[in-house]
């Protein structure tokens, strides 16, 4: 009986806490603005290709056309429709963010938890690995791989980005795990005979949920930016379209010198808007989760 009441009160407390977070989340302007922009682009990713009757690589009309009612963002030198290319390119951006950012977060969390909780020699080894991967830029690694991989897709690119993006997350999560490890409730769980893996997932991880979520958002944005850079240098997907590839083509065909701003500027503007909305969302979330920052 007593147990039941306790459980119930705990449940109420939990839902109260959730409500409180929701309350602040819905009233946080930064979160609202960021979320609105992000949702707009996510919807556009699905709806965009339906808004156009062209194919992204298809030569649909005369080249060098500035934006008009027929070609919303003008045409490239070869007469491809820039609006169509941007709409199709969005998909690659979100795939890279999800897969690359997701993988980066996953590895970072795994390494951070194990290194922080276990300590000792495992910590040393993982630390060394983290340090090595920190120093080697993604770009450099991809450079070598790209020279020998004749065909690369968006997915390959995302995986490489994820595989090299995790160190900062691992460091931060390790530090947090380290400080949580010696708390009383973790000690209690350990004394009651829980297995390390279970302690990590039931005692430590729930206390860091907000932090992990924010890590994912930052990794998401970071992966998108990394992909744009790689695409631009020529290490991107060998077929298909992405926002970085549109920009690369624009620069290679002297779009700036020729004054074709509609070709070079919009793809980067879209990327900036998406990543900025993620970052601003992150600040908002920080304020929601961390009461100390709320008073401002």
């Amino acid at each position: 009986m007593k147990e039941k009441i306790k459980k119930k009160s705990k449940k109420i407390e939990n839902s109260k806490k959730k409500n409180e977070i929701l309350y602040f989340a819905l009233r946080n302007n930064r979160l609202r603005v960021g979320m609105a922009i992000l949702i707009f682009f996510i919807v556009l990713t699905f709806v965009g290709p339906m808004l156009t009757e062209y194919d992204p690589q298809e030569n649909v009309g005369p080249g060098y056309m500035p934006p008009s009612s027929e070609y919303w963002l003008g045409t490239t030198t070869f007469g491809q429709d820039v609006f169509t290319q941007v709409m199709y390119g969005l998909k690659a951006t979100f795939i890279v963010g999800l897969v690359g950012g997701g993988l980066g977060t996953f590895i970072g969390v795994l390494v951070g938890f194990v290194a922080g909780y276990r300590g000792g020699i495992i910590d040393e080894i993982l630390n060394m690995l983290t340090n090595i991967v920190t120093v080697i830029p993604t770009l450099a690694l991809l450079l070598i791989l790209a020279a020998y991989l004749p065909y690369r897709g968006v997915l390959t690119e995302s995986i490489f980005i994820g595989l090299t993006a995790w160190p900062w997350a691992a460091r931060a999560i390790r530090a947090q795990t380290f400080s949580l490890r010696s708390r009383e409730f973790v000690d209690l769980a350990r004394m009651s005979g829980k297995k390390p893996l279970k302690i990590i997932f039931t005692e430590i991880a729930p206390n860091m949920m907000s932090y992990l979520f924010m890590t994912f958002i930052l990794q998401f944005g970071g992966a998108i930016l990394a992909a744009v850079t790689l695409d631009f240098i020529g290490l991107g997907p060998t077929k298909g379209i992405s926002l970085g590839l549109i920009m690369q083509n624009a620069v290679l065909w002297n779009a700036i010198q020729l004054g074709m701003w509609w070709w070079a500027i919009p793809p980067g503007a879209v990327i900036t808007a998406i990543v900025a909305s993620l970052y601003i969302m992150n600040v908002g979330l920080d304020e929601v989760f961390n009461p100390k920052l709320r008073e401002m």
Partner: protein
Amino acid sequence: MNRYFRRKLFIYILTFVFAVSIDWLIPRFMPGNPIQNLLSRVSVRAEAAEVMYGYLTEAFGLDQPLWKQYLNFWNALFHGDLGTSVYLFPQPVIKVIMKAVPYDVLLLVPAIMLSWITGNKFGAFAARTKKLDNTVLPIWYVLTATPYMWLGILLAWVFGVLLDVFPISGAYSYAMTPSFSLAFIWDFIKHWFLPFASLFLVQFGGWAIGMRNMIIYELEADYSHYMEALGAPRKLVRKYAFRNAMLPQITGLALQLGVIVAGALATEIVFSYPGIGYLLLQAIQYQDYFLIQGCFLFIIIGVLLANFVIDVIYVLVDPRTRKGMEGGAQ
């Protein structure tokens, strides 16, 4: 302190060995014959292909046992032999790269240092001053979310095409020959300014945000509250907060280096600035494997060196690392 440096040095050497090994490993363990793979993608005349085949066979040394190939690879590396460029045949890769490196240094070092210093100062200034914070913070977030090359494109279009005040291609005018004359230096600075500005602005936003957040965090710390309670002037409290907030920013710089370098490479492509980034684009387009490999090694060496410098600065700035390391226990 010695122990600290020995440890760091060990990690750097390990990283370098790791990088070089990957460099050696990948062409050899990809499916197919690496030489055929390379040649099939370079369109050269038949006679040239034969010469190249002979050269590549010797360079790769595939007929020797693996361990010997590996040792040969290191041996060549220490003799500065990075192979011959296909794209700029028959120039040695090391020469091609050495010509490009100064441009990278001139672009990267001022951009990184100036943006770090001014970004931190301005971020600290804006923290907890409500009006400034609310107006300036969104701008910083947009700046830090901007891909480097896109800001480059934007600046090139606005200042190079619309207003026509800055040149947007190359490191100096084609009509000029490099010399220490005033006219040349002025021309050089004019070409350097826009790539520099795009690198500077993107980083500036990031550092300012980081510093602002750290200062707010430090001002909430017990020591700040205690000092306020003692009646210390606001300026003094903020000064102490700034000093403490600096340390994570130094670590942050080390973590960001890879991204900054990648950004600089992309920016160089926008402005056809003859650094490693521009070279890399050509190398990738011409499938010039040795040149790609050389750029890879130089980027790694550069980032390693910069990391080491940051480590030294960290020890100089943070007395705790010195003390902790001397005692042997952290």
